């Protein structure tokens, strides 16, 4: 203990300048992330809601009457007593996996295509990056219009070839496919650009040498391209997973309130708890912490897996 203090003090005296440099960042992060997080964790152990939170409004004031309830909120969620957690979780995982697989798969395919020398390559690149430049909510509304059952462009096209109109956003199953399609459209460009960067960092000599040794294109892809992409892939898949897991706007704006609760993912459900009826601060905070923990566990596990793979090499 005393040695630690000594060490800290010594590091202060030698590196005081560095400490001073990072201080603003630490303060800003503390205010913007640390405080809300701490408050959220604290609330999740209480039974706080809109009605028992103290407030003073004009000549009307009530003291806070919420109490500490320990792990009750978590028990409610994880024991399934509250009824919506496991169905939501299953769909959230399904949604995340299918979106990330599609993002990565299509992104990789397009990146491979764009990595070749061809005419108009930069134009294609610009066009394919376009969805990334569109804000998520704009995309959500645009797709919502296209999916419209009566007047949407998709059903109009289907009508032209004599197919009956599809209820894109009404049928619980098709609804899910619809949102996955929107999110795929939105998420592919980022993956594509990242993978393209990764592809260009793979030394060309490797491919040439393999070709000399008579490797087929497929062998080259599997043994040179994919391993070469590993550092990029591992990072973007992790990022993509976290982003998709918490992809609030697409689900919320495209399906809206019509879908019932089956198509809601965990974050949109937590939002509803926080902003519906007598706002359940504690319940939604507990949900938030559960979501955070799930992602933390996943990230740690995922990094560990990658490290083991690296070590096995």
């Amino acid at each position, binding site marked *: 203990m005393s040695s630690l203090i000594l060490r800290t003090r010594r590091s202060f005296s030698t590196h005081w300048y560095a400490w001073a440099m990072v201080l603003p960042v630490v303060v800003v992060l503390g205010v913007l992330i640390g405080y809300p997080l701490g408050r959220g964790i*604290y609330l999740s152990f209480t039974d706080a809601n809109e009605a028992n939170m103290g407030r003073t*409004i004009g000549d009307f004031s009530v003291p806070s009457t919420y109490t*500490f309830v320990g792990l009750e909120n978590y028990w409610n969620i994880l024991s399934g007593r509250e009824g919506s957690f496991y169905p939501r979780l299953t769909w959230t995982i399904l949604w995340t996996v299918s979106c990330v697989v599609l993002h990565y798969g299509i992104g990789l395919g397009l990146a491979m295509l764009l990595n070749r020398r061809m005419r108009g390559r930069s134009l294609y690149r610009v066009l394919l990056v376009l969805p990334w430049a569109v804000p998520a909510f704009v995309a959500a509304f645009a797709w919502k219009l296209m999916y419209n059952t009566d007047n949407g462009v998709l059903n109009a096209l289907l009508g032209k070839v004599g197919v009956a109109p599809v209820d894109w956003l009404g049928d619980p199953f098709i609804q899910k496919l619809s949102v996955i399609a929107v999110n795929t459209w939105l998420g592919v460009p980022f993956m594509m650009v990242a993978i393209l960067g990764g592809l260009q960092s793979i030394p060309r000599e490797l491919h040439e040498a393999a070709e000399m040794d008579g490797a087929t294109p497929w062998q080259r892809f599997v043994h040179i391209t994919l391993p070469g992409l590993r550092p990029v892939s591992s990072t973007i898949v992790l990022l993509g997973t976290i982003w998709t897991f918490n992809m609030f706007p697409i689900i919320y704006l495209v399906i809206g309130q019509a879908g019932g609760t089956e198509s809601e993912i965990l974050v949109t459900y937590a939002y509803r708890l926080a902003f519906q009826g007598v706002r359940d601060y504690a319940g939604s905070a507990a949900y938030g912490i559960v979501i955070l923990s799930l992602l933390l566990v996943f990230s740690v596990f995922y990094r560990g897996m990658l490290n083991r793979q690296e070590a096995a090499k």
Partner: protein
Amino acid sequence: MRKGMTAAAIAGVLALTATACGGDGGGSGDSSGRKAAEDPKSVSGSITWWDTSNEAEGPTYDKLVAAFQKEYPKIKVNRTSVSFDQAEQKFKTAAQSGKGAPDVIRTDVGWSAGFANLGYLQPLDGTPALDNAADFLPGPMSTAKWKGETVGVPQVTDTLALLYNKEIFAKAGIAKPPATWDEFIATAKTVKAKTGVTGTQLNPEGYFSLPFLYGEGADMLDVDGKKITVNSAGAVKGMETALKLAQSDVALKPASTDGYVAAQTSFKDGKIAMVINGPWSVSDDYSGKAFQNKDNLGIATIPAGPSGTAAAPIGGHNYSVYRGSKNKDASYLFVKFMASAQSQELTAKEINTLPTRKSAYTPAVTADPAKKAFQQALSVAKSRPVIPGVGDLFVAFDQHYVKVLRGDASPKEGLDALAKEWNSKLLKDYSIG
């Protein structure tokens, strides 16, 4: 430790709210409004009014605001248009923190109880805002009460009625609008057979299913008996009627997203012959190509169930004053002005709203067939349960109603699930009966 934390939290919350709240310095409610009552011309300052009316209605309210400012040159009113479906949550957020809350808000009658329950609304009894209270219609006035206090001043009232396209009816040889749901379905069939126009399109929102339930003598809740009655035998029967209609080939399939807009657009464009909607939609109808000639719009009382009862829910809006408002005097004067018979008459004439004051039903207002029809419809309208968070009941209601109409759940299954959901989340102290 725990105590310390709670105390710290309370102190924090108090500090946050205290800085944001001016009000009248925690004075009693009586002191506010004295100036407005005794010397209204001396009141000055600016106030914000959150108006949730739709685009077709906006200009008329602007006109009223201008007239008010002319009468009280020292007061400035900022009319902020807030979208109806976001206003409830927006107001709750602002009211709780005291930051950015309006002085006056147009509250849907379904929100009043919830807001008042949380202490966000200023009781208006004895203030200048509530002027000649006996003049208000009893139905709308009852929606503005909470625990014996008046927390709003009725602005407009509305109910649902059957709107139909006279031209299409004439082509199909239909003499008078249907009076029961069975006739409604028969009429839709006749229209389709004779003219090729689809009969109707249902709006898949829970609120719009209420006439089917009321027609069977059923209701959502029995508030006095603390019972959830939404899955009673009568309600299931009513829901079956709605389903029969939705699944028939004479109705356009209810749109799963934005069902309201879809039905309204179909009706405006003359793609369907009948729709169930309220007086707020009339101005919008007149803008559609099917109703360029206003006389083509027919309005009739909501169809009745087999029991012979016809009833639709009472809707509408009240003016409420935020309890933390820094300028209550001006707010009271503004509400008084806006809810006066004269103002109500103007909005009735210009945008077809239904006044909440008996004295506003002047001959000039009742001469209009649309308003006369809705006034008759009001005579059979029913109040929704006045409990906090009645609006949230409808969120779950909408979801289950859509499922029933799509055929994903039978009426009985859907309503049972709905009753269970209400019971587990919103109405824990009710029994399902």
